[in-house]
């Protein structure tokens, strides 16, 4: 224990090193605070939905009440869905700044609605967010480099190396002690603020434990790299330059190269093609016999097939039938598009096994449910909700029931999903 205390005393006398630690703790805290501010802004936006929605739907209800036409109710009503941030989202905001977390849908064709975005300033999104994941993945390695680059070479240059090696408990044991102490201090600078923030935000204990284990694992990679470079017996300056160049390659250059490679190797059917095809399928209905549309709709949705035949007048059930047909007609394209996105994402995450920077980012955004998987999960929940919406309105349209004002109170409600079943 005394030896450890001795090392700590030596370390604490290095003003620059102590300042570096304090700076890291400060940056970590600032990033955590920024993340919490952003996440609470998103929660507030979600909390503001019901009031706005109530106002909007009341106006629709007042209008529909004149005709009690379920078709008008279905056509004019927007229904909100949302994707509340997971407890850990504050630490890794992932895609939440560029993908919508609130989306209103109508019972019309979903494929024309589900890819819509929210309003955001692209110039602010471009450099990436200042969150905990950024501090850990991008900045922490630089601090490792600053504390480790001259661990051995500095002593050699000061002429103390031989003496230190000859000391009892010197040599390897000494370097291990010094490295472990520095690693532990870096861990504390990152981990303690994170732990406090995570407790405030109510993150599950197991998740906190995973992140707290992830931090030293990632730091250890960089420590190992620094020790490896140190073994080459170059001078301190060369060590520092080599490590900084390695950082540049591993954190900035390799991921961008891999991004180009992945996007070239895995072409994704453009989402725009889905939108184009869906629109053609929908609008064609105006030019073909209405019975064809209904036949096709009933074939896919036999539960409504006993509905009364169409009269000569416009009927909304025909209108919604061809919207449904439009969605059904692009089903295969939608699946292909999605599996293309998933393939790209999987390739990116697979790279994480080689590039620790990517691996840590992938793991953090997975835990925080802010990655593509989470985005697609939100889209699945929108699809589920939309299915319920359609079934609800079809019940009125195809069974010729009037849509009363009170029926607006029976609208399907979007269910917030619970975060208990996250899988990595």
């Amino acid at each position, binding site marked *: 224990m005394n030896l450890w205390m001795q090392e700590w005393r030596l370390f604490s006398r290095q003003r620059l090193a102590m300042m570096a630690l304090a700076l890291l703790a400060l940056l970590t805290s600032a990033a955590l605070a920024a993340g919490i501010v952003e996440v609470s802004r998103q929660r507030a936006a979600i909390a503001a939905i019901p009031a706005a929605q109530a106002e909007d739907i009341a*106006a629709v209800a007042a209008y529909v009440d004149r005709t009690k036409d379920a078709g008008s109710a279905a056509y004019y009503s927007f229904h909100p869905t949302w994707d509340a941030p997971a407890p850990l989202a504050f630490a890794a905001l992932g895609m939440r700044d560029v993908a919508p977390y609130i989306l209103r849908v109508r019972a019309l064709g979903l494929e024309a609605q589900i890819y819509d975005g929210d309003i955001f300033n692209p110039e*602010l999104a471009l450099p*990436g967010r200042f969150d905990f994941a950024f501090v850990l993945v991008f900045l922490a390695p630089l601090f490792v480099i600053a504390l480790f680059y*001259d661990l051995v070479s500095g002593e050699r240059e000061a002429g103390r190396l031989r003496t230190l090696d000859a000391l009892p408990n010197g040599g390897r044991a000494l370097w291990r002690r010094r490295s472990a102490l520095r690693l532990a201090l870096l861990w504390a600078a990152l981990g303690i603020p994170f732990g406090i923030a995570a407790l405030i935000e109510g993150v599950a204990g197991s998740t906190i434990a995973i992140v707290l284990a992830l931090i030293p694992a990632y730091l250890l990679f960089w420590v190992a790299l620094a020790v490896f470079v140190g073994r080459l017996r170059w001078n301190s300056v060369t060590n*520092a330059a080599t490590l900084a160049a390695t950082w540049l390659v591993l954190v900035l250059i390799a991921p*961008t190269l891999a*991004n180009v490679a992945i996007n070239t190797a895995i072409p994704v059917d453009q989402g725009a093609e889905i939108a184009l095809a869906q629109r053609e399928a929908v*609008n064609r209905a105006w030019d073909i016999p209405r019975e064809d549309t209904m036949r096709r709709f009933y074939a896919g949705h036999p539960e409504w097939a006993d509905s009364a035949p169409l009269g000569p007048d416009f009927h909304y059930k025909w209108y919604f039938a061809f919207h449904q047909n439009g969605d059904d007609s692009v089903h295969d394209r939608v699946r292909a598009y999605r599996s293309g996105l998933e393939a790209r994402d999987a390739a990116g995450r697979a790279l994480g096994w080689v590039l620790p*920077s990517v691996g840590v980012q992938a793991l953090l955004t997975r835990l925080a449910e802010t990655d*593509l998987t989470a985005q697609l999960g939100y889209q699945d929940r929108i699809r589920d909700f939309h299915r319920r919406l359609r079934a609800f309105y079809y019940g009125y349209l195809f069974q010729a029931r009037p849509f009363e004002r009170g029926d607006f109170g029976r609208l399907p409600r979007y269910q917030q999903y619970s975060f208990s079943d996250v899988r990595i």
Partner: protein
Amino acid sequence: MSVGDRTVRLIARDELRMMARNRVAVIAFAMLVLLTLVAVASSWAHRNGVAALRDRHAHVAERAFDAQPDRHPHRMVHYGTFIFRPPGPLAAFDPGVDAYTGNSMFLEGHRQNTANFGDVRQSSLLVRFGQLTPAFVLQVVAPLLLIFLGYGGLARETERGTLRLLMLQGASRRQVVRGKLLALGTVALIAGAPAMIGLLLIAGQPGALAQYMLAPMSLIALGYAIYLAAWAVLILLVSALVRRSRDALLALVAVWAVTLVLVPRVAPDLASAAVPLANRLQTDVAIARDLRTMGDSHDPDDPHFAAFQQSVLARYGVDRVEDLPVNYKGVVAMEGERMTASLFDRYATDSFAAQARQNGIVAAIGVLSPAIALRSLSMAAAGTDVAGHRRFLEQAEAYRYALVQRLNRMQAEGVRYADDTARDAGADRRKRVSGDHWRAMPDFRFVPPDGRTLATAALPGLVIVVGWLALALTLLALATRRLGARS
């Protein structure tokens, strides 16, 4: 040529020889050149691929629109049209926000849709690590290389006492510093050259080197040259101020990390916290609310539309809508579209104003980081900044409005009111107008900004970068006087 200049050149040549002997530096330099070439090639291929794809989609959409059969004009209002934003020629050098903004838009009546399918939502998580473009290489990677090559330039001489030796041989402090600066500047020039050649190649593609692109391209070249020069001066400044070359390296890497990695990320957070942006749900609900107070075309008792009807009847001198020479339903559609479009414009203007305020905050913070200033200069000159995206959205909205109103006018003038309200078996046929009309509709053509507009937008960034260079030069001149004084 004076003797002094020869001394400067001798010192510069000596310094370059030192750098060439540093194997790590040479390898790093070769890698930078290689990286630039890869970046130019891939960015160019990406830009051309994207341009071809969007062009193809646009043609498919235009052909589909033209091929529509005889229809009621209002059906075409809802059929709408898809438009695609073509990337500008300089997007291959600096794609800016292109990946973050949607590039396709569905235009229809009564609604303003979002631009969708940006790359950022169609790529793996790697896209958020940055994009490999010539601009990225010059902004981020090149300064670090210059640091590796130049940190020891003066610190090494003071540390080893060789500075005194140089001065004993008759070189002045200024000459030493100018020599080192010449050497590092030469390296910076060579480091930036491949990207600039890439820029020229990019500009050489058909249509790009129209004369109007000359101004923004020169500004880009000038901006990056000044930026790298400012780094070279800054590196020597730190090298002059710090006594040990090791400290110079650490300090410079720290400055690099703060200005290029940290500040660009912190600034947007501060900006978005300071200026909130209304989200789409709140905007849509607000537009619907405003529309209800302005007038509801569905409501037969609505005061606005009652007055509107009276004014239309008065204009044509008739008493009943049935007697109008035009189809009143089309006239109402035009009035309704005018009202919604005015609201879309107002809310879009507000949102853009808020975004401009956010970007203004980031630009103000850019005074602290030349990288932010250079980035905005580069994007503005390439036409790939938020202003460029706004240009697309505004042209899209103008086109949407014109298209929808043409269709509404067609309904007013080409479909008789009696047919439009008829419900008999043949009514559907009589409501339709000839499909030839769709082919007569003009297609959407994005009008790219002229060089003057782009160059003007890039000027503020240039001023800041020049300011940085001037400041660094002044400080270096001051530091030169005290160079080696304490050693």
